[in-house]
């Protein structure tokens, strides 16, 4: 049963209408030290343990940033009784990354229960990060009880709709999307008509040579629909990005790193700074995975991304907190 499910993932039966020139290049699990390189293509990814083997050319660019995800502040169960400590460790890691990341993307589940004090704690910890700008998109844990009003007030004042927005940094166009609201019974993550319309307009005027980075909480590709790890209408969103030569999709939600390359689009999920979740289909449910305390930091992590202007290539690097 589990073997079959893994096959499905590898063969990608999500029928999302994308031109399938691509292939699954590499699936990297946090803590395994997996390494993948796409030749003449879009994305490089390597774990922290390989960093010393790479020269400055590969690890530094004209623009670099870090991604953190799923800090779940407020979570206190055995899978990780100290989520504040592991978030601090993530910040230390970011502060130690060569190339000084310019900003941080947080791909959601900042809090565990949408409590004001949980958000406050994360804000406080992130103040010690060298990069001062943090860009957020909400996870489903950030919009409990109030459909995301509090989250919008804190992090999305300049955003549209339920919190989507875009910005440009050194020629790279960043798009933050919200796919955790108005979820339907039995369904997956949802972007919705209004957001899709906005996205189409947002990228219409851009040159096809513009590198695009899309970040959203729930994966915008079918990682494992049985556990809700996918987004209903992501195919439509991706159809608006077909003309671009380099598209990188950064997600969180599944608490493990995973990658897929399809043509010009590279999908990438980040590890959680709080607790790991099982590999797709490898457990009865996607609940928090308990690992021995001494192993915990090896399955948590951060992602740093650097862009080299002119090459239209983004290098995505996963580091564990160990």
């Amino acid at each position, binding site marked *: 049963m589990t073997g079959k499910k893994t096959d499905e993932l590898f063969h990608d039966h999500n029928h999302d209408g994308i031109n399938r020139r691509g292939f699954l290049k590499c699936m990297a699990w946090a803590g395994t030290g997996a390494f993948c390189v796409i030749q003449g293509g879009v994305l490089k990814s390597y774990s922290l343990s390989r960093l010393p083997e790479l020269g400055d050319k590969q690890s530094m660019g004209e623009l670099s940033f870090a991604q953190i995800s799923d800090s779940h502040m407020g979570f206190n*169960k*055995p*899978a990780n009784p100290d989520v504040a400590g592991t978030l601090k460790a993530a910040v230390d890691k970011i502060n130690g990354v060569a190339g000084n990341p310019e900003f941080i993307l947080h791909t959601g589940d900042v809090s*565990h*229960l*949408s409590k004001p004090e949980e958000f406050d704690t994360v804000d406080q910890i992130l103040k010690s990060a060298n990069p001062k700008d943090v860009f957020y998109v909400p996870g*489903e*844990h950030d919009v*409990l*009880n109030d459909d995301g009003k509090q989250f919008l007030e804190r992090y999305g004042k300049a955003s549209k709709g339920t919190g989507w927005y875009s910005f440009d940094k050194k020629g790279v166009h960043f798009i933050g999307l919200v796919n955790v609201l108005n*979820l*339907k*019974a*039995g*369904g*997956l993550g949802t972007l919705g008509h209004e957001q899709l319309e906005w996205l189409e307009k947002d990228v219409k005027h851009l040159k096809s040579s513009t590198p695009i980075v899309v970040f959203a909480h729930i994966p915008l590709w079918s990682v494992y629909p*049985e*556990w*809700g790890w996918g987004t209903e209408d992501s195919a439509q969103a991706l159809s608006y990005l077909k003309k671009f030569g380099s598209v990188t999709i950064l997600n969180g939600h599944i608490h493990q790193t995973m990658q897929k390359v399809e043509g010009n689009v590279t999908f990438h999920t980040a590890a959680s700074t709080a607790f790991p979740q099982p590999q797709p289909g490898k457990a*009865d*449910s*996607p*609940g*928090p995975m308990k690992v021995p305390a001494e192993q915990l930091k090896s399955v948590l992590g951060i992602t740093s991304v650097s862009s080299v202007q002119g090459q239209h290539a983004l290098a995505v690097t996963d580091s564990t907190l160990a």
Partner: protein
Amino acid sequence: MGRSVSVAVLAVIAFAAAASLGLVRNSTVAAQQKTEAPEVKIDNFSFGPAELTIPAGATVTWVNRDDIPHTVVSTDKVFKSKVLDTDDKFSFKFDKAGTYPYFCSIHPKMTGKVVVQ
């Protein structure tokens, strides 16, 4: 006297008929559910039992046994819980007969159903 005997006989016949149809067993279960409040456990990202049948007027209580918060939201907007952290409970009284599908609005793959008879 003769009249009360015939009532008693009728009652026995009715009971026998009901028993042969399995109605007695059902009503016993219904009576038990009335006294022991029906409960749905949320565990391992699922509702158990996923389908619960109750008599009209009964109150169902959901209790979250997971390490992760969940919600109980009626698909037809009849009821909606606040977020339930570990061991939190939510109750709703079902007055009208019918079928009430519901789901977890945080993890919408989690679905369940209450059938009110």
